[in-house]
């Protein structure tokens, strides 16, 4: 498992590095500044210094806010889902408020009604003169699931903590960001019928994710984004309603898309 995870992270870093090297070589070869934004859309640099991005680490002036509406879709293995073939996308809401000097207040909700996560946190972004930028954030909140019907009268609730690290690279009018997150949940309680109980493996470590975001600028300063990455989590996080107790980690793809206002 350890080797497998290291291989994954190594592969992700390798892919990212290879891409960055290609870009650097390309930039050196052409020896010219990033191409001007086509069709009049704002450049990454402009957006970064105005309202900022949700994913590309940027340091907008204090008081600048960013609101985002999006969706995620997890292609979870049927073995984790006990053979259930239905997958639902999640609605994702994000809010970001710049506190100045690279510090940010962040709030995040994702929900498909059955599963909900609400987090608030603080982050710090470093965005220098070049295309690279780096950000770190930590959030805390609640993991809440509830389902009545379809053979369920169940809910679960737990505290959630999520440290994150993001590396960004500007391509002129497109920002690429690779974000790694740790997913920590606990303590956690669950109810079935009238009966409440805890879980046998209450270790905080629930999983991690590595997602590559592509943020595209627009003329008006809004941003639309898409991305994809790997979620590596306990089955319990992926599909809490059956409470599988195995601490074994499963990797599944996550697709994301949304719009930043």
């Amino acid at each position, binding site marked *: *498992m350890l*080797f*497998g*995870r290291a*291989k*994954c992270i190594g*592969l*992700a870093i390798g*892919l990212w590095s290879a*891409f960055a090297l*290609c870009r650097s070589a390309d930039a050196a070869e052409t020896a010219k500044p990033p191409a001007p934004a086509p069709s009049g859309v704002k450049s990454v640099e402009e957006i970064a210094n105005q309202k900022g991005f949700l994913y590309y680490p940027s340091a907008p002036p204090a008081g600048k806010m960013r609101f985002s509406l999006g969706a995620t879709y997890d292609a979870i*293995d*049927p*073995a*984790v889902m006990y*053979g259930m*073939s239905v997958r639902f996308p999640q609605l994702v809401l994000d809010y970001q408020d710049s506190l100045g000097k690279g510090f940010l207040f962040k709030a995040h909700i994702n929900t498909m009604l059955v599963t909900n996560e609400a987090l608030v946190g603080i982050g710090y972004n470093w965005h220098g003169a070049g295309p690279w930028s780096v950000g770190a954030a930590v959030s805390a909140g609640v993991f809440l699931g509830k*389902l009545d019907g379809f*053979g*369920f*009268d*169940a809910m679960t609730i737990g505290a959630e903590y999520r440290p994150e690290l993001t590396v960004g690279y500007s*391509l*002129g009018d*497109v920002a*690429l960001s690779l974000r790694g997150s740790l997913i920590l949940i606990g303590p956690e309680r*669950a109810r*079935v*019928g*009238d*009966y409440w*109980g*805890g*879980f*046998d*493996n209450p270790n905080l470590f629930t999983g991690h994710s*590595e997602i*590559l975001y*592509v943020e595209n600028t627009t003329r008006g300063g809004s941003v639309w984004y*898409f*991305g*994809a*990455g*790997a979620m*590596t989590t306990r*089955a319990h996080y992926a599909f809490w309603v*059956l*409470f*599988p*107790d*195995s*601490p*074994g*980690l*499963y*990797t*599944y*793809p*996550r*697709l994301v898309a949304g719009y930043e206002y």
Partner: protein
Amino acid sequence: MNTKTWALALAFGAPFLLADCETALEVSIPMFPDGGMLRTGTALKREQLRDGFEGMFNVSKGSALLGDKASIITSPGTVSVLTDKNAGFAVLGAACLPDQRVVVEGYWQYPTRADAGLLRVFVDPPAVAQAFCNGETPTPDTSFSLTGTYGDGDDIPTKPLELRWSNELKPWRDTFYTVAHHGACEATDHCGVSPNSIESIRLAERIGSNAAELDVRTTRDGIPILFHDPTMSASLVRGLFCNGAVKDLSLAEMRASCLMRYGEQIPTLEAALDMMVNETELSGVYLDEKTAEGVLPSARLVQKVLEDLKLRTDGRKFAPLIGIPTDDVLDAWHSAKSKLLSENADRVALGQEPLAIPECLLEYDVDKVIAEECVAWGPTWTEGPQPENVQKLRDHGIGTIFWTINESDFIEGFLTTSKPNGIITARAALLFQTYQLIGSVPEPLVKKDGQQ
């Protein structure tokens, strides 16, 4: 390739590369080199294991592995130590050595943690070991102990372990059903066997199950097989050409292209029933019919098992139940039952004995369970313990078997709140030990006609 194309390719290509990273199987069942000491000894007989070893034991040394108490049960050829600590178990063999000691050795495992190791203990006092070696079966008492060592991984065990017999086990065979959830372990566990495989059923008995729940689907040529998912999902099977829906593949195609996750063949229901009846002491099986098409062929195989059992003279009991999870399957059950009854009428007309009609277990509506005259209700545990419904069915002589509880808090809660007749679980050792420590022996079920 321009920048945006690169970005798109990278964004969508990376996860598919990454998604395959952690599917490596991480199972290592430790073994003593060269077969250990068992190879030099003479295996104890079945009745010596059952009557000489079973019981609740105090763990006087080695509680870090087994907690304070552990149950020992036996099955053909093996002695098993079961604990509620991390749902752990040890599967051991027992043999009389040339020096008249009795060695009990094998491996232990925490199935959810990939932790495992070797374990070797000896029967104490020596007089008891001598009696076993003489072919006798000494009745265990508080002087009986198993003393030795355990270790981690493939290391030769060095940590002290002592289990001292404390008391007899609560009745469990044919009494409280620890039902293996599609075999021994969850797909996310590290037991080294695939769900719904023959090997998984065999392991299930060794880790505390006395019945099994198995998933039934039919192949394109109408043969019932054991498989959970509707398609050949990568997490359950392997094989370069192993793709598509189960119902679209013939058994021959499946056998040619597919192996289960840990390399086993996908079993036919017939082979699984034969193995359970003839090679295990399991009390029954609950066939979770995933499709309506599987009901009639399953019912015919169950009839064959019941007829074979009638011919046996060794008193072997085995209760196969047709599991009904949906109204579609219920409709199929109605037509299958009508057909079997009609065939029986023909047999009677020809002066032949009618064949047994299989019994059913219905998973959902309590009133339908009563109306269909099923022998058991199999509700999902995610609606809670429902003690009123359990009692209502008990009043009708119908048992309740909840599926699928793996968490110790909830196993305790359901055992004490509803007192069911059984629970389906992938944590057989945990359920068995919890039942032994805090469970109540279920009241015998009495049907309205007075039959038990």
